[in-house]
């Protein structure tokens, strides 16, 4: 498990699942389908990503395609990192 994946899993499990059921969370599980995030949750997630990875997330990037699973988050962060000079 890479460090980003580990950090993301830890954040999601602690912050949204309050430590429960982490072993059952797969990297491709949809946060929406599993009811893991609500409207505040999306903003919590964004605040964490901006803070942890020093990236700036634009409003138009706030879509499930970028933020709805551990896998999509990893892809999104890596894409953002490539764009950062």
């Amino acid at each position: 498990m890479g460090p980003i994946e580990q950090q993301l899993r830890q954040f999601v499990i602690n912050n949204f699942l309050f430590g429960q059921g982490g072993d059952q969370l797969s990297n491709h599980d949809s946060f929406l389908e599993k009811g893991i995030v609500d409207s505040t949750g999306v903003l919590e997630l964004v605040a964490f990503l901006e803070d942890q990875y020093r990236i700036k997330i634009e409003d138009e990037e706030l879509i499930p395609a970028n933020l709805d699973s551990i896998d999509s988050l990893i892809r999104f962060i890596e894409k953002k990192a490539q764009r950062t000079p």
Partner: protein
Amino acid sequence: MCGIAGVLNNKGERIGPDLLHRMIRMIRYRGPDDRNVFTEGPIGLAHARLSIIDLAGGRQPMHNEDKSLWITFNGEIFNYVELRKELEGKGHRFSSQSDTEVLLHLYEEKGEDCVHDLNGQWAFAIWNAKTHKLFLSRDRLGVRPLFYAITDHAFIFGSEIKAVLTHPDVRREINLRALDQIFTFWYSLPPETIFKGVQELPPGHSMVVEDGKVQIRQYWKLGYQQHSGLITERDYADQLLELLVDATRLRLRSDVPVGAYLSGGLDSTVITALIKRFTDTPLKTFSVTFDDPEFDESAHQKEVIHFLGTDHQEVRCTHQDIGRIFPEVVWHMEKPVLRTAPAPLYLLSRLVRENGYKVVLTGEGSDEMLGGYDIFKETKIRRFWGNQPNSRIRPLLLKRLYPYLPNLQTQSDAYLQAFFHVKSEDRSDPFFSHLPRWGLTGRIKMFFSDDVKARLKSYDAYAEMKKHLPVEYSDWDGFSQAQYLEAAHLLPGYILSSQGDRVAMAHSVEGRFPFLDYRVVEFASKIPPHLKMKVLNEKYILKQAVGKLIPVSIKKRPKQPYRAPEAQSFIGGATQPSRNDYVEELLSKDRIQKDGIFNSEAVLKLTKKIKGGQVIGIKDNMALVGILSTQLVVDQFIKNFDRRSVHGAD
């Protein structure tokens, strides 16, 4: 308004008065003016009286002329004057001026069908000493509470659960099914209560206890009709106003002065304006204001006070107040809740009592009957959006609907679509209107302990709710279905109980609700949905009905739901320590583990998150309030009930 309790021994054994005295003492705040007990053979009835009508002559339990019928009654029969005239015409003779005696004679005349003639709010029990039959009834909409327990030897009832739990044969154990319901819908579904051994008589039901057998019968139910369209919009508005005027007139019948709650919103302003029609003296009004501007409505309240010229009193509520009084509020509500909103209303009823008032009229029921809640608007928008799922414009309406929820404003369409369940398969769901709310609420069940989760594994609260739907439900339009869920369940299960009767009666204050006059309710059920909410203008027909009776600005004001500060009332942020010792204790790892309902690690992480000062969403707020109130129920009713009973015995 009063408190009632009673025991019927089904083995024919004699009931002693001591037990009845103990039971009624537990709820003595419901009726501090007088307290009496009647026992005869297997029956015992108890009554705590709040004197409002016939101050000198309405003592209870009351009997008829030959002492064959005995009644203990909590509530008001507002049309008792008219009923008395009818009964006198049929030869009945009265010895008091009270509505209780009218009810007793009406029962003599009509038996169990007497409830159809009543316009009021009631919970009562009538004992027939000749037939050894006990008849109990609760009002149509559940304004007044009535709980009971059935043991091997007895039928036990009371206005509040704590009176029933005082009986030594009633066990005190948490009902996990009811907990699951509360953590899904915000309320439990009658007859279930949060206590395994105690049941609730549903609104609109009566029951007969005879020879150890219990029969329950529904005598009235909410319904929504196909709309004929035969009368015009103006006719609907005029008829609604006429009914509201009469409903208010009847609810001013009292031998003590009557005041009114004033929130600054449309409904309480309408009621206050209608009361002004019947009185020349300055009307006393009461409101709650908040330190936190996010919840405060005092600017609107001031406008109404000025417009209507009322003599106004207000109580200011802080986060600390809510944290401090919450244990006492839970003691009165007798169930877990997911919002703190009942707490400020507890302070408000205390203010009323301190001003020497016992009776207030309020605007409760208007949102349910006339289409005021945001959930109705939300449902309409969701259906509208669902017709064109790719629309970029339609989801913007959801953002406009919730200006007070800043987290929603930055969401993309895709997220809004997911949060608000605008999927084609959801549109045919019988609970379409409530899927977002119940789905979000149900997530907090993740905090249940492994043991509780295992015991609830095969339980499905939605399936349970489906069993409670009337057969006609599927024939109703979506707006009426949403109205039904709010009016038949949220109203009695939360609004009229936790935010109504229980916190008002804690300070011996009786609420009266003109919008819940059954004539208003039945008429409202015939108003076409498009007149209740015209496009997205909520309570449109009410606004048309009241015309210039209220300030234009109040009519035009977007609805602001009544809310109160939540998590921050109990747990300070990073810079502030926790404010209340009981919160630390009840949410401690050790205590959570001992009580066994919640997962201690998860609760610890939740409190840590709140203490960290992050923005806390609706779900986390509900989780904290739900966990804390459940822990308070366990602490006060399961573990330390005997200690509280001692306090109850004055």
